[in-house]
C-alpha cells in the first residue's frame, strides 16, 4: 500500500469503512466534521451501508444502539459537548453488551468552550460519564496513522468483547493532515454477528434489554460485565515506551501531548537528562502494572496533559506512593510546545536532584 496525505478525521472514516463499518450516524460539530463528511461521501452510497446525519447527538447514539443490535458494525463520532449528550446512550450500549465504536475528537471545555484541541475528557472517557458501573475501552492515538490503525482495532475489540470502544482523539489530530497507510482493504462481505436481532427467523424470539424489577438479575449483568472487564484488563492494555531504559524520570502523557512530549524528551536527552516516556495507548485499561513496575526503579514521574490533571490520578493509583508524581497541564485548548515541555522537564529534573549523564 502507498501512503496518502489525509486529515486525521478522514483517516478514521476510511479505516472504519475498511474495517467493515456499515452504518455511521453522526451530527456536525467542530473539530470532527471531516469525519462525518467523509462518511457522507464514502459510506452513504455504499451497498448495504447507511449514513444518517441525525437530528442530534442523542439521536445518533441511539441509532447506533439500534443498528448494533442487528449485528452490523457501526460507528458514531462527535466532540466534547456532543459526547456528553451521548452518555445515556453509551450506558445503554454498554449495558446491553452491544459493540460500537464512538469517536471523541475532543475540544476545550467545559461548556461551549472552544473548538481547539484539548484533553479534558479523560475522566469522562475512562470512568464512564454515564450512569452505572460500565467501562468502555478507550484508545488514544497520537498520529493520523495511529488514528487509522486504532480505528481498525477498535472494531475488532468491540466485536470481541462486546464492550463499546471509545477513540479519544482531539481536534488537532482530527484537523491535521499526515501521510497514512491503510493496511487493510474493505471486506467484500461484512461480518455478521450470530446473536443479532433480525427477526425470529429459524429461532425463537430474542430480547435485548436491561430493565428488571429483580435487583439480582441486574447484579448478574453487572458482574458478568465485571468479569469481561477483568479479561480486557489482562489482554488489551497497550502502551508505548520511549527511552525508558536508563531513565531517571518518566514522562507520562497520552495522545497529542505525548507526541509533543517526545519532541521535548529528545531535546533534553541531547543535554544529558535521563528522561524517558510511557505513553498509554489504551487509557482504559490503563497500564497500571507497567507503571507500578517502573516505579520500583524510577522514582520520578512527570505527567503532561492538556487539562488540569486527570490521568495523573491513574498514575498515582499505579505508583501507590512509591514514586513522586508531578503534573504539568494546560487546559482549555492551549497547545503546549515541545520547548515549553522541555523547560518543564528540565526544571523538574534538577529540582528533584537528578543528575546529568556524563
Amino acid at each position: 500500500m502507498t501512503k496518502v496525505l489525509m486529515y486525521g478525521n478522514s483517516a478514521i472514516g476510511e479505516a472504519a469503512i475498511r474495517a467493515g463499518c456499515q452504518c455511521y450516524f453522526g451530527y456536525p460539530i467542530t473539530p470532527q466534521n471531516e469525519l462525518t463528511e467523509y462518511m457522507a461521501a464514502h459510506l452513504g452510497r455504499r451497498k448495504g451501508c447507511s449514513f444518517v446525519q441525525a437530528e442530534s447527538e442523542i439521536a445518533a447514539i441511539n441509532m447506533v444502539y439500534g443498528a448494533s443490535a442487528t449485528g452490523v458494525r457501526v460507528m458514531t463520532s462527535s466532540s466534547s459537548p456532543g459526547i456528553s449528550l451521548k452518555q445515556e446512550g453509551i450506558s445503554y450500549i454498554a449495558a446491553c453488551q452491544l459493540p460500537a465504536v464512538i469517536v471523541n475528537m475532543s475540544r476545550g471545555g467545559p461548556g461551549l468552550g472552544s473548538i481547539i484541541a484539548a484533553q479534558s475528557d479523560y475522566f469522562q472517557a475512562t470512568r464512564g460519564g454515564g450512569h452505572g458501573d460500565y467501562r468502555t475501552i478507550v484508545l488514544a492515538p497520537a498520529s493520523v496513522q495511529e488514528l487509522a490503525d486504532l480505528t481498525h482495532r477498535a472494531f475488532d475489540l468491540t466485536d470481541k468483547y462486546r464492550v463499546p470502544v471509545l477513540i479519544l482523539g482531539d481536534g488537532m489530530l482530527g484537523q491535521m493532515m499526515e501521510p497514512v497507510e491503510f493496511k487493510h482493504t474493505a471486506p467484500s462481505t461484512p461480518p455478521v454477528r450470530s446473536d443479532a436481532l433480525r427477526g425470529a427467523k429459524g429461532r425463537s424470539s430474542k430480547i435485548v434489554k436491561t430493565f428488571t424489577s429483580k435487583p439480582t438479575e441486574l447484579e448478574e449483568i453487572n458482574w458478568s460485565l465485571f468479569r469481561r472487564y477483568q479479561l480486557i484488563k489482562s489482554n488489551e492494555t497497550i502502551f508505548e515506551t520511549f527511552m525508558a531504559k536508563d531513565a531517571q524520570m518518566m514522562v507520562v502523557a497520552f495522545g497529542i501531548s505525548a507526541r509533543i512530549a517526545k519532541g521535548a524528551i529528545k531535546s533534553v536527552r541531547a543535554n544529558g537528562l535521563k528522561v524517558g516516556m510511557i505513553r498509554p495507548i489504551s487509557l482504559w485499561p490503563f497500564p497500571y502494572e507497567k507503571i507500578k513496575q517502573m516505579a520500583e526503579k524510577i522514582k520520578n514521574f512527570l505527567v503532561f496533559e492538556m487539562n488540569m490533571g486527570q490521568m495523573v490520578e491513574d498514575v498515582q493509583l499505579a505508583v501507590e506512593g512509591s514514586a513522586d508524581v508531578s503534573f504539568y497541564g494546560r487546559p482549555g485548548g492551549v497547545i503546549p510546545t515541545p520547548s515549553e515541555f522541555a523547560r518543564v522537564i528540565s526544571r523538574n529534573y534538577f529540582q528533584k536532584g537528578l543528575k546529568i549523564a556524563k
Partner: protein
Amino acid sequence: MKKVYARPKVLKKAVFHYCPGCGHSIIHRLVAELVDEMDIQDNVIGVPPPGCSVFAYNYLDVDMLESAHGRGAAVATGIKRANPDVLVFTYQGDGDLAAIGTAETIHAANRGEKITAIFVNNAVYGMTGGQMAPTTLLGMKTTTSPFGRDETTEGAPIKISEMLALVKGAVYIERTAVNSPSNIKKTKKALRKAFQAQIDNLGYSLVEILAPCPTNWKMSVLDSWKWVDEVMAKEFPLGVIKDTTGL
C-alpha cells in the same frame, strides 16, 4: 363447537402486569393478532421504551430491543437502516413520544423512515405514577398538576399527530381508541394499514391510540373507558389524520 376466539399465538403465555382495564394489554393483543394474521412473526423487531409497557417483550413473541426513554424513533431508525427488510415498530407512550422524544419522532417521520409508531396516548405518565403528560387535558389533576392542568403555565394538550401530518415523510397517521368493540376493531385496522405502509416502503406511519389508564385517572374501569369517548376524544378527535399511502 369451534373455538372462534383464542389467545393469539404470538402472545406469550405470561400474565399481564397491567392494571385491570388498562388499554396497553388490548393493544398488545391486537399487535399479536396482526403479526399472526400477517404471518410476519419471524421478521419483526419491536422497540418498547420505558413506560408501563416497558415489559412488552414479556408478552410479544417477536424480537425486541428496549430503548431509552423517548429514543424509540432513533433506535428504530438504526435498526431499519441496518436491516431494511425487517418490519420495525416502536411502542411508545405519550410521555415518551410527545415529550422527551419529540425531536426523534419528528425527524424520523421527516426523513420518511420506514417504521411504524404505535403511540399509546393515555394523557398521563403511567409508569412513573401519574404525572402530567404533554397530552394531559386542561384542568386534569395529576401528581404534577395537583391543581389541574393550567393553560397559562402548562399549555394546552399537544397534538403531535396533527403536527406530524405536516411532514412529507409521514404517509399514514390515524387516531383511534381502545375503549369499545368498534374502536378496538378500528384500531386493529389502522395498525394493519400502518404495517402495510411500512412493508410497501412508503414511509413513516403512526397510529395514535387513546387508551384508558384507570389507575392514574383515579376512575373506575368503566368510567375510564367512557371518559375516552366523552372527554378525551373531544380534545383528540378520532379518525384518519393523514393518508397518502393509496392503500
